[in-house]
């Protein structure tokens, strides 16, 4: 049985054309892009071409606004730490309660070091309160960092509007667009976004390569100090094979943007409707009218996510969960908790994230597979009354530790 991969928000398969484009840069094209001889020069030209491809996908005005990094986490850390260094008298940061750990864990640490962190709350559908945001913008704020789209629920934030507000208040604006790039149209030259993070492996490029977009003229301080690579803004010999791969992946993503918003969206909608029609006590999470076209997050009440994933995996189906138990921490996902999803549902939240490589036949197989798994786990769940096939409600009241 062919395995089905519905976990594209975690990582994507490297496109075969991307792999092919990278291979020469592991062998004959091994030069250092900074070298003056022909070995280096050819690699340097390939890196420059990739930079242009990425600038085109993002709608950046200048190729030099593209800085290659080792991935989304490095880009996020670089952006926020840069702002704190560039504006040392500003001691506040605005972000949201549902950011990726690459931003949240850094902010937790900065809080311990004495910075004030404002974490914008979200409502039950995962939406921000822009009024709260506007009141927080002040000359004490070094940077506002808000993700373009949430990795768990797929909810899209109005970052272009928020960047304009930040600009008006004289505050730098950064967005973690790791989930948005390639799935949503982005035209940075028409926005006030100062910095943007993207990650290669979320758009069919390899792991270990990312980009920090840095608007020309935005104050910046590098995270690392070293050579003149990336104009001194990110020293270290360029990861040429991965950069070339990311360049091609960006060109392919631009070409397939339409596919993501038609074909992939259609598959996602069919999957979600199919599951919800067959499974009682299940509901989709996030802002359903305003979310990534590839993401469906479904909360299955009274069962636990890891158990669902293990049973799906047995059938060759890969998805992921907002559950505590898959992440190593005990808490359920901070995103589901921020949206106020009850514990018994938050633990049973499954994220299906599709890509342009998925098919209708796969969607149909998953729609068939899910209902018996949920029923099987509910039969042994104390929160579920198997006889009535309904929630047990007051019949189960455990003593909580």
């Amino acid at each position, binding site marked *: 049985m062919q395995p089905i991969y519905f976990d594209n928000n975690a990582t994507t398969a490297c496109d075969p054309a991307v792999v092919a484009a990278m291979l020469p840069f592991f062998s004959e094209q091994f030069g250092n892009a900074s070298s003056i001889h022909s070995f280096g020069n050819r690699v340097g030209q390939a890196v420059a071409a990739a930079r242009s491809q990425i600038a085109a996908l993002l709608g950046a005005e200048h190729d030099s606004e593209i800085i290659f990094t080792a991935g989304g986490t490095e880009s996020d850390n670089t952006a926020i730490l840069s702002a704190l260094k560039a504006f040392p008298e500003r001691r506040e940061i605005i972000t949201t309660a549902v950011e990726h750990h690459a931003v949240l864990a850094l902010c937790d640490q900065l809080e311990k070091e004495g910075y004030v962190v404002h974490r914008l709350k979200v409502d039950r559908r995962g939406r921000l309160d822009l009024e709260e945001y506007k009141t927080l913008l002040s000359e004490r704020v070094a940077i506002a960092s808000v993700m373009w789209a949430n990795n768990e629920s797929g909810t899209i934030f109005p970052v272009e509007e928020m960047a304009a507000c930040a600009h008006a208040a004289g505050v730098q604006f950064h967005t973690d667009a790791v989930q948005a790039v390639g799935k949503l149209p982005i035209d940075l030259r028409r926005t006030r976004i100062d910095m943007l993070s993207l990650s290669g492996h979320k758009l069919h490029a390899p792991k270990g390569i990312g980009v920090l977009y840095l608007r020309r003229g935005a104050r910046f301080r590098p995270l690392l100090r070293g050579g003149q690579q990336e104009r001194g803004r990110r020293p270290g010999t360029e990861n040429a094979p991965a950069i070339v791969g990311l360049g091609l992946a960006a060109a392919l993503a631009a070409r397939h943007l339409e596919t993501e918003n038609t074909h992939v969206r259609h598959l996602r909608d069919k999957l979600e409707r199919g599951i919800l029609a067959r499974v009682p006590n299940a509901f989709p999470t996030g802002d359903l009218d305003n979310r990534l076209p590839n993401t469906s997050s479904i909360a299955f009440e*009274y*069962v*636990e*996510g*890891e*158990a669902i994933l*293990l*049973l799906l*995996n*047995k059938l060759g189906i890969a998805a992921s969960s907002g*559950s*505590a*138990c*898959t992440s*190593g*921490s*005990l*808490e*359920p996902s901070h995103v589901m908790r921020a949206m106020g999803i009850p*514990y*018994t549902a*938050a*633990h049973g939240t499954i994220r299906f994230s599709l890509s342009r490589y998925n098919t209708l036949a796969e969607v149909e197989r998953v729609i068939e597979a899910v209902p018996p798994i949920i029923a099987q786990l509910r*039969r*042994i*769940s*104390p*929160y579920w009354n*198997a006889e009535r096939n309904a929630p047990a409600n007051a019949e*189960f*009241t*455990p*003593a*909580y*530790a």
Partner: protein
Amino acid sequence: MWDYTDKVKEHFFNPRNAGPLAEANATGEVGSIQCGDALRLMLKVDPASDRILDASFQTFGCGSAIASSSALTEIIKGMTLDEALKVSNQDIAQFLDGLPPEKMHCSVMGREALQAAIANYRGEAWEDDHQEGELICKCYAIDSALIEQVVRDNALSTLEQVTHYTKAGGACAACHEKIEEVLLRTLAAQAGTPPPSAAARPEAPPPAPAAAPRPALTNLQRMRRIEEVIDSVRPMLRRDHGDIEVVEIIGKNIYVNLQGACMGCAMEAATLGGIQQKLFEALGEFVRLLPASQLETSRQPLHAD
């Protein structure tokens, strides 16, 4: 994904004794608010012999929570209630050929459900005294609640002491930053005393003030004090299913037997080091705590202290 043993997978995919038990006369219902797992354990107890004739469970939880519940019911069937009460969460984990450290709490929940069910059968009130915090040391599955408690109970102030007393941080050392954070937080919370630097290396023990030397102990007082110190650390070892026994005291060498889970534990040396430090403080003199296995070799020559 977790590195589950085949036994865990087998008990998850084919759980034994899952579902309601019609003739149950004892029920335990427990849950963990932090990890969200919940478990109902049902027993059919023979009133004449106090023997568990049948057991079943219903569990809301991850793969290892379901597997732990299944394992528990298999372990306790046929036991008397008193025998069943001796089943530890380590027994459950061992039955499954081990659980990942992050998942040990699943086996704890099983044991608590068992205690609750037996209390329910005997008409007793059951109170859960189990506390769980953030998992700090993944090598030894030590959480913040345990570290906080040991720091408070033993007035610890350095990372090294925490390692000696709890084992946390004693292997891969990746959690040292987290341990120091817990330590600072606990110290700061204590009676408003300013936290000393947790990062400080262990200092040389302060020299005994020369002006007021401790009065010398008689041999009997000294032996009693050694026993007191050993008794004070025993609960900590028992928590890890180990024990300690004093075998002989020869001059400055105190020979002990580590028993149970402590035997051959990777942290044996560190455990002895921690206890030695306590003895040192209680006696006001330098002593060496040695495994009794070294007793034979030291006996033959006159001990050269």
